[in-house]
């Protein structure tokens, strides 16, 4: 199809965001194509989480332009004032993205299976008997069928995070956002979560992953972005990025990570 332009899954341009007097995002642009996996790395406090949260409207931006699958979420007029689309539109557009948090944020009062079927039932209105078999498949996929009727407090950190992934997938998102999915885990539990994300990459899920796991970024991501002080300092094809970073700040960061 040479004459159709393929829209990126996420197209964020020149995103600015401040908290009080602190400029947290200073003109961040990023676009991700279908099936692509982008890893965002960078020191703590550089604005990685904030950027991710701006994409699915957990934070509002000051200035910039965000499109999801070709649909406008927010744009900025010539006076530098941002305009979001209507609330219902925001919700509809943001539903194309699933998010996994560092702290899991499972619903503690629901069992594993309830956690997974709740949003499809409540948000999409899918009947229970229809969503249940799909939820069982997802549970199987993250290897937690045996924990079906347990509450989150009865799970290990790695198991919780895998439930969180299954819960997000149950909404059938086109894009998955991961915000340091393994940072709250004991080292011996990161592997099971990373393998789950790796398996998603092999199914060509479009993913944006904030991570401190450099080996994982190199292996699973197509592209790596290095963020520092609210800017994307450098980005490039994953293997090349790690083999020969260009920017001085990137080199220092990578050296400290090893």
């Amino acid at each position, binding site marked *: 199809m040479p004459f159709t332009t393929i829209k990126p899954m996420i197209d964020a341009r020149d995103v600015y965001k401040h908290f009080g007097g602190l400029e947290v995002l200073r003109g961040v642009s990023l676009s991700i194509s279908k099936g692509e996996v982008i890893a965002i790395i960078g020191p703590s406090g550089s604005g990685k989480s904030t950027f991710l949260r701006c994409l699915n409207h957990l934070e509002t931006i000051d200035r910039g332009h965000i499109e999801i699958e070709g649909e406008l979420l927010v744009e900025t007029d010539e006076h530098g004032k941002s305009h979001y689309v209507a609330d219902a539109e925001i919700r509809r557009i943001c539903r194309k993205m699933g998010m996994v948090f560092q702290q899991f944020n499972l*619903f503690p009062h629901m069992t594993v299976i309830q956690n997974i079927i709740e949003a499809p039932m409540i948000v999409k209105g899918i009947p229970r008997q229809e969503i249940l078999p799909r939820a069982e498949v997802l549970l199987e996929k993250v290897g937690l069928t045996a924990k079906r009727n347990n509450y989150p407090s009865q799970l290990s950190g790695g198991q919780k995070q895998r439930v969180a992934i299954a819960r997000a997938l149950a909404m059938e998102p086109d894009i998955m956002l991961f915000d340091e999915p393994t940072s709250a885990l004991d080292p011996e539990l990161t592997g099971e979560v990373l393998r789950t994300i790796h398996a998603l990459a092999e199914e060509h899920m479009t993913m944006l992953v904030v991570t401190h796991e450099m080996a994982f970024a190199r292996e699973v991501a197509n592209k790596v972005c290095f963020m520092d002080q609210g800017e994307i300092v450098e980005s490039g094809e994953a293997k090349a990025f790690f083999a020969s970073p260009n920017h001085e700040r990137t080199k220092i960061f990578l050296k400290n990570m090893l």
Partner: protein
Amino acid sequence: MDYILNMLGPLWQGATVTLKLFFITLVLSLPLGLILALLRISRFRAVSTSVNGYIWLMRGTPLMLQMLFIYFALPFVPVIGVKLPDFPAAIVAFALNYAAYFAEIFRAGIQSISKGQYESAKALGFTYAQTMRRVIMPQMIKRILPPMSNETITLVKDTSLIYVLALNDLLRAARNIVQRDFTTTPFLVAAAFYLIMTLVLTWGFQRLEKRYAVYDD
């Protein structure tokens, strides 16, 4: 023995007034308190400030004063002034007063739920109303059970305040017999009744707490 059985009639009459006041107050003040709590955490400053003022007023003045005001003084207030019969006046005062206490319990419960719960719900596409109903409220209930248990037990005993409106509640019924027959037995019967109500409530709340103990936060 016959004597005690004889006095149970009027005492039971009084107890039904007490029970009626107790249950109607709960039925009215629980939803009202929840609404107040939600308004209190609203991001509209004018709304939360006025609710705050209301809670301060209701918690800062005696319930008895509020009851006397609604019964005796409200009829003379312009525009909203109405003359309520004694029992409805008591109900209004109790409901308005207890709604303020419940509102604070609900608010503290809602605000004890972590921000991450709202965020994961929002990221899954829940509206604010859906988030409150499905995620926040159910978790809040578990956390507010102990203070709720306290407050409802206090309500049992506060019902005796309506004697100032000359309503024949349990305590007044007991006192009438005491004055007529020069015996304190009715007081003991009344005390037993209050204790039984408290016992039933304590038991009920314990059962609820057990039910909610299936999960940890």
